C-alpha cells in the first residue's frame, strides 16, 4: 500500500513538472497557435537566472525566491523579443512557427554554451528543499517535489484567475476566440499577442527555476522535456487550461505506474499508444471550445 501511495505521489510530481512546462505552452500554443520549439530554451534561461543570481546572492533560499520573479521577466522578455522579431510575421502560418523557433532554439543553445560554458552548471538548493518529508514511517515524499507541486498549482490558479477576471485576461480570450471581431471592436490585437507571449514565456522561466531543484542546468536541458509537454496540451484540448491540468497529472501517473512495472522504453511506447487511442475517441482533445466554425 505504501508502495502504491509513494508511486502515486511520484506520478503526481512528474505531472507537476509536466504541468509547469505545459502551462506556458497552453498560452503560446493553446491560445495563439504558435508551436514554440524554443520553449525549452526559455526554460533554460530561467534556470540560468538562478545560477547567475547565486553568483551575486549568497543565500540559496533567498536567491531561489528572488529568481522566481526575475526568471519570469527574463524569459518573458526573451519571448517577447522572439515574438516581435519573428513570430509576429507568422500568425497566418502556424506550422512555420515550428521551424523558425527550432532555429531560435539552436541559436539560444549556442549562446548558453558560449556564455556559461558547455558543461552543466551547478546551483545550490536551500537545505529545506533537498530533504524529504515523512508522511508515515514508510511513506517518504521529497520536499522539492512538494514545492514544485505547490508552485504549479499556484501558477494554474493565478493564470485561471487572471484570464477570467482581469481586463487583460478578457482581452486575451477575446482575441483568441475571434481575432477579427476583437480587432474591429478596437482591441490592439498586436499588443495583446505580445502580452500573451510574455506571460507564456515567463511561465517557462518559472518552470526553469523549479527544474534546478530536480534536474541538470545546461544548454540542452529543455529539449528533452518539451515534446511531452506539447502532447499534454494537445491531448488536453487546445485553448483549455483545465484539460492541460488533468492530462498532465494523468500522464504523469500512467507513466510512473507503467514504468514501475516495466521499463522506461516500454512505458514511453505505451504512453504514445494510449494517446493515439485517446485521440480516436476525442480528436480535439479532452475539452474543446465550442465554436460554430467549419474548417
Amino acid at each position, binding site marked *: 500500500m505504501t508502495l502504491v501511495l509513494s508511486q502515486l505521489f511520484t506520478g503526481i510530481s512528474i505531472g507537476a513538472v509536466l504541468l509547469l512546462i505545459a502551462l506556458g505552452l497552453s498560452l503560446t500554443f493553446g491560445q495563439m497557435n504558435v508551436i514554440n520549439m524554443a520553449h525549452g530554451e526559455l526554460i533554460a534561461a530561467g534556470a540560468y537566472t538562478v545560477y547567475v543570481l547565486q553568483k551575486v546572492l549568497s543565500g540559496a533560499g533567498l536567491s531561489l525566491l528572488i529568481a522566481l520573479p526575475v526568471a519570469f521577466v527574463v524569459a518573458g522578455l526573451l519571448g517577447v523579443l522572439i515574438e516581435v522579431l519573428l513570430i509576429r510575421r507568422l500568425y497566418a502560418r502556424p506550422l512555420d512557427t515550428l521551424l523558425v523557433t527550432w532555429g531560435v532554439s539552436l541559436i539560444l543553445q549556442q549562446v548558453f554554451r558560449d556564455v556559461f*560554458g*558547455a*558543461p552543466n552548471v551547478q546551483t545550490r538548493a536551500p537545505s529545506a528543499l*533537498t*530533504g*524529504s518529508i515523512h508522511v508515515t514511517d514508510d511513506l517518504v515524499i521529497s520536499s522539492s517535489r512538494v514545492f514544485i507541486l505547490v508552485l504549479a498549482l499556484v501558477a494554474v490558479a493565478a493564470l485561471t484567475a487572471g484570464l477570467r477576471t482581469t481586463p487583460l485576461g478578457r482581452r486575451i480570450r477575446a482575441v483568441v476566440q475571434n481575432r477579427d471581431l476583437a480587432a474591429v471592436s478596437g482591441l490592439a490585437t498586436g499588443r495583446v499577442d505580445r502580452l500573451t507571449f510574455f506571460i507564456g514565456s515567463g511561465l517557462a522561466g518559472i518552470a526553469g527555476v523549479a527544474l534546478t531543484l530536480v534536474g541538470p542546468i545546461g*544548454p540542452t536541458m529543455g529539449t528533452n522535456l518539451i515534446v511531452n509537454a506539447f502532447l499534454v496540451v494537445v491531448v488536453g484540448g487546445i485553448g483549455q487550461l483545465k484539460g492541460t491540468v488533468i492530462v498532465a497529472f494523468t500522464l504523469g501517473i500512467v507513466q*510512473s505506474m507503467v514504468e514501475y512495472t516495466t521499463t*522506461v522504453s516500454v512505458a514511453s511506447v505505451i504512453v504514445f499508444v494510449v494517446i493515439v487511442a485517446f485521440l480516436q475517441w476525442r480528436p480535439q482533445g479532452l475539452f474543446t471550445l465550442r465554436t460554430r466554425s467549419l474548417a
Partner: protein
Amino acid sequence: MFRIPGRRSAAIVAAVAAFATLTACGAKTTDSATTSGAGATIDTSGSSVKVGLLNSLSGTMAISEVTVRDSLKLAIDEINAAGGVLGKQIAPVSEDGGSDWPTFAEKAQKLISQDKVAAVFGCWTSASRKAVKPVFEKNKSLLFYPVQYEGLEQSPYIFYTGATTNQQIVPGLDYLKAQGKTSLYLVGSDYVFPRTANKIIKAYAEANGMKVLGEDYAPLGSTEFSTIVNKVKASGAAAVFNTLNGDSNVAFFKEYKSAGLTAASMPVVSVSIAEEEVKSIGTQYLAGQLTAWNYYQTTPGAANEKFVKAYKAKYGADKPTSDPMEAAYTSVYLWKAMVEKAGSFEVEKVKAASAAGGITYDAPEGKVTVDGATQHIFKTARIGKVGDDGLITEVWNSGEPIKPDPFLKGYPWATGLS
C-alpha cells in the same frame, strides 16, 4: 482518380530505371584490391603535420566532449612549444561530431581523405566510436579513443587510452566486496556501455556470492528519475552501481538525496562521474559517494601537478581536470612517443612501433605503458570519494597498473560474456 500517365513521361521513368540498372551492373567489381594498399595518405609535406580532433561541440554530448577537445589542444600546444614531433609542428584540425553518429563517420572520413591527418583523437560515446570504427579500418588510419568503455573490442586501427572493464568496473566491484556489500542495484543509461557493464557485474556477482536486486535503464538524456529511485529504495540493496551518463546523473542524485538515501545508508559507485560532473551536480547532493576511475585531479605526482597547473592557466582557475581529459591529454603524448620510436608518421610503422612494446609515458595518472597486443594501456585503478570541496580523493588503488583485458579472458567467471 489518377489520370493515366502520358506515354512520354512513362518513357522517361522507364529510361531512368533502365539507366540505373545499367550503371549498377556496369560497375560490378568484387575485387577489393584497389583499397588494400599502404593505407591512408598522410600529408607530411611542409613544416607541420595535421592531426584531427573529433568531438561533439554541439548537441547533448557537448557538455562532456568540449573539455576533452580543450585538453587535447593543451597537449598539442605543449608539444609544439617543445619543438613538435619529428621536427614538425602539430596542426590540429577540429571537427564537430554534433552528438550524431553518422556525422561522426562523415567527419572522420573528411579528416582522413581531405585533411590527410596523421591521426585522429576523440569520440566519447561508444556509439560514435562504433560509427567511425569501420571508417578508420577501411582507410587504415589511426584513432585515439580517450574514454573508459565497455571492452569487447579490439580494432587494429584504434588505440584505447581510457580504461577497459577490468581496469575500472572489476576493481570497483572488488572494492564493494571488500567492504562487505552483498547486494547491488544497477542503474544505467540505455546504451551499450551500461548494458555491457551490467552484464559483467551480474556475472561477477554470481561468482562472488553477491545479489543483484534490480536493473534499470533510462534513455540517454533522461532527467526523470523519481520512479527509478523509488525502485532502488524499495529494493533495500546494500549499494548502487551507477553507469548513468551525463545529464541523467544530475537528476538521479538530486532525486536520490530527496528520497532520503545517503552515502552512508546506500552508497553509490559511479563510473561516469568525474570532477566536471561533481561540479555540475553539487557536493550537497554528492558528498561521500564513490567513484571508480584511473585518475583524479588530486592524484599525487609531479606530472599531474604540471598538468593541472597548465590546464588551469590556459582555461581558467575554476576548471577542474578529470579522467577522460587526462586520458585525452595522455593519448597525444603516447602518439608522439610511438611516432618518434617509429621515426615516421606512417600508420603501419607507428603501429609496429607500439606492437614492439616499450611505449611508456609519465602521465598525470602515473606511468602508463601501451600494451602492443591489445592497443589498450596499462592503468592503475583508483576508487575515490567525493569530498565537500568538490574534489575526489582516492580511498583505494590497485597498487600497480593493471594489464588491459578487453575481452576479460583472464577472469574465469566471465567466460561466455564475449
